[in-house]
């Protein structure tokens, strides 16, 4: 039996151990690490967007904008820190410390943007929020494109590549942990109330705007962290990586996984990120050599087709609103 005082910390300790083991086992396989990192970043993005789109029932389509803010804030901060080491620490440890600071800065910058965007727009309902977030994403992208200090259209390269399997998946784990704790707290119940009926929630004394803004800020924070992670394992970050299309990709993950289900978001992020790579492997194996270019062009339409099939077969998403950790059967369908 775990002592009650340790119950909160235990999952984190266990996750750290598991991730360290994973890092030792797979750290040397570059392709695996790269793809796993992309998956991890998408998990953070999907899980954090799920807090707004799934749990609170708002419709934000500007997640790539927050990711871009985080990526550029963290990347720009890391860039001059590439040759700096904290005195009194071994180089590797100081690198990781600075990396953590950059990530935090990225997250905070994105959260601040989330607050600024959310405060006025979350007083609105439905489609208006979608349009505001869409506009925000585009504004961020265009500003970056025209700022020489951020590399302009060519992109920002030379960011120290400090990302690792451990760092990415620890952040993914923390995002999931936070999302789960939110869902099970009274805070989460208020968010659910807002999702189900905003007027009724307000009548019951829920300060809807405040709750929505808080959910939005948490979501933006993790999107920023995801961006920061992204900037530290992709050799160059470029405004073209944070377009509306990226926002839609994340929305698709959340919807395909089941709006409101954190487990669903995780699974969908994993599957939808691996699927294009898997199709590539499959096509390479079965179509044979020489079919090369055609095959890789067919890949994306097939990906789209599979999404259509998925949504036709399971309109409520893979998990609906259930979670893997719902204990009793039937408890999943929350009111």
């Amino acid at each position: 039996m775990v002592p009650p005082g340790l119950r909160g910390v235990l999952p984190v300790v266990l996750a750290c151990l598991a991730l360290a083991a994973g890092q030792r086992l797979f750290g040397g396989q570059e392709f695996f690490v790269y793809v796993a990192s992309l998956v991890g970043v998408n998990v953070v993005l999907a899980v954090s967007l799920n807090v707004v789109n799934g749990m609170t029932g708002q419709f934000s389509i500007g997640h790539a904008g927050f990711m871009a803010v985080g990526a550029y804030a963290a990347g720009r901060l890391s860039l001059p820190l590439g040759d700096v080491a904290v005195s009194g620490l071994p180089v590797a440890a100081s690198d990781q410390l600075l990396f953590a600071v950059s990530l935090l800065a990225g997250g905070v910058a994105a959260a601040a943007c989330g607050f600024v965007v959310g405060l006025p727009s979350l007083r609105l309902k439905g489609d208006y929020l979608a349009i505001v977030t869409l506009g925000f994403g585009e504004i961020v992208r265009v500003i970056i494109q025209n700022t020489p200090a951020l590399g302009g259209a060519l992109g920002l390269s030379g960011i120290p590549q400090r990302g690792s399997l451990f760092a990415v998946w620890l952040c993914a784990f923390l995002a999931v942990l936070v999302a789960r704790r939110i869902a099970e707290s009274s805070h989460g119940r208020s968010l659910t109330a807002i999702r189900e009926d905003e007027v009724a929630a307000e009548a019951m004394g829920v300060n809807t705007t405040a709750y929505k803004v808080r959910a939005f800020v948490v979501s933006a924070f993790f999107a920023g962290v995801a961006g920061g992670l992204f900037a530290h394992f992709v050799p160059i970050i470029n405004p073209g990586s944070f377009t509306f299309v990226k926002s839609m990709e994340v929305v698709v993950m959340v919807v395909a996984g089941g709006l409101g289900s954190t487990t669903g978001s995780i699974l969908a992020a994993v599957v939808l990120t691996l699927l294009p790579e898997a199709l590539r492997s499959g096509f390479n194996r079965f179509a044979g050599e020489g079919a090369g270019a055609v095959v890789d062009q067919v890949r994306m339409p097939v990906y789209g087709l599979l999404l259509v099939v998925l949504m036709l077969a399971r309109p409520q998403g893979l998990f609906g609103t259930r979670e893997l950790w719902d204990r009793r059967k039937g408890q999943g369908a929350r009111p």
Partner: protein
Amino acid sequence: MRSLLPALLAAASLLAGCEKKQPAQAPAAPATPELKAPAAPPPASDVILLGEVGSLTGAEATFGQSTHEGIQLALEQANAAGGVNGKKLEVRVYDDQGKPEEAANAAVRLINQDKVKLILGEVASTNSLAMADKAQAAKVPMVSPSSTNEAVTQKGDYIFRVCFIDPFQGYAMAKFARETLKLQNVAVLQDNKSAYSTGLTGVFQLRFAEMGGKVAGVESYSKGDTDFRAQLTALKKAKPDGIYIPGYYTDVGLIARQAQELGLKAVLLGGDGWESEKLFELGGSAVDGSYYTNHYSPDSPNPATQAFISAYKAKHNGKVPDSLAALAYDAANVAVAALRKSKSLEGPDIRDALAQTKDFDGAAGKLTLDEKRNATKPAVVLKVENGKAVFAASVSP
């Protein structure tokens, strides 16, 4: 069915994981009936696998497709000529959707999973930069056909390119204006927000003055402006016989029209930012008689160019290759020549062989790779005549 679906998807995603355990050069899978070749596929050890990364889908899909066609043609010809020391060449292409993270992913996959000997690509400089980091770290040589940004080859000594870098065009135009057109007095109108434009301007000013010409004045605009009369009027006072406008075609078309309205009689000169059908639409008769520099022209009398064009046309139903196809063809041929010369198929040996590329007779001109791994090669000057760009001259460095 419904409960099966998540399991199916999970299984599909596992395929990506399975790939890891494949042997380095797996024998090619049996071809499908339509693709069946008369001879059995050669055993794995007789194949040299090259990698290609390009934007086959996405906003710049035509770039990736033209590039791929050029590379395919070069490799087919190389294989018909006996391959490399009796080994057949094959290229594995991955699509990057025009995104740098996907380009890096594809490069990592080519290097670690497919164990390619050499990587060809990309067109966009951003994507090449992303790949260059990965290729350099793994010591796998990379040849970019058409990334002109200077930073690309500065990534390391395994990164090469077969096109000239941006500022060279400024020199080429200065030389052409001074020696062929015999211009004395040239004014410059630059886009001060674009590094490309200011880079070309800097080199042009310096070189044109060195060759005995006079730069009558420099004025600036910002991309997207629509009224250039103030700048043009200021330039008109200097009575230039030529105006150098190293900008993009949308602005250039308007500038040309307004220059004509103001009665400026000077010859207009430009760079490869002019290359678009839209230029003739926007500029109309005002751009007639102008000159601009480019990488390649299908009308060039160079025999290597013409041989490439006829081979390409034969393969693609008479389609005229664009400059991306020509540069890709050169990149693949430079790579093949280096593989033939290389002592072994190890990265460092291939790199050394690539670095020695000298006087290579390419479809887009004779090229030599310098110590910065950039191509020294002639630029082509095109003249605008009746809404068409025709070959005017070739300017050697």
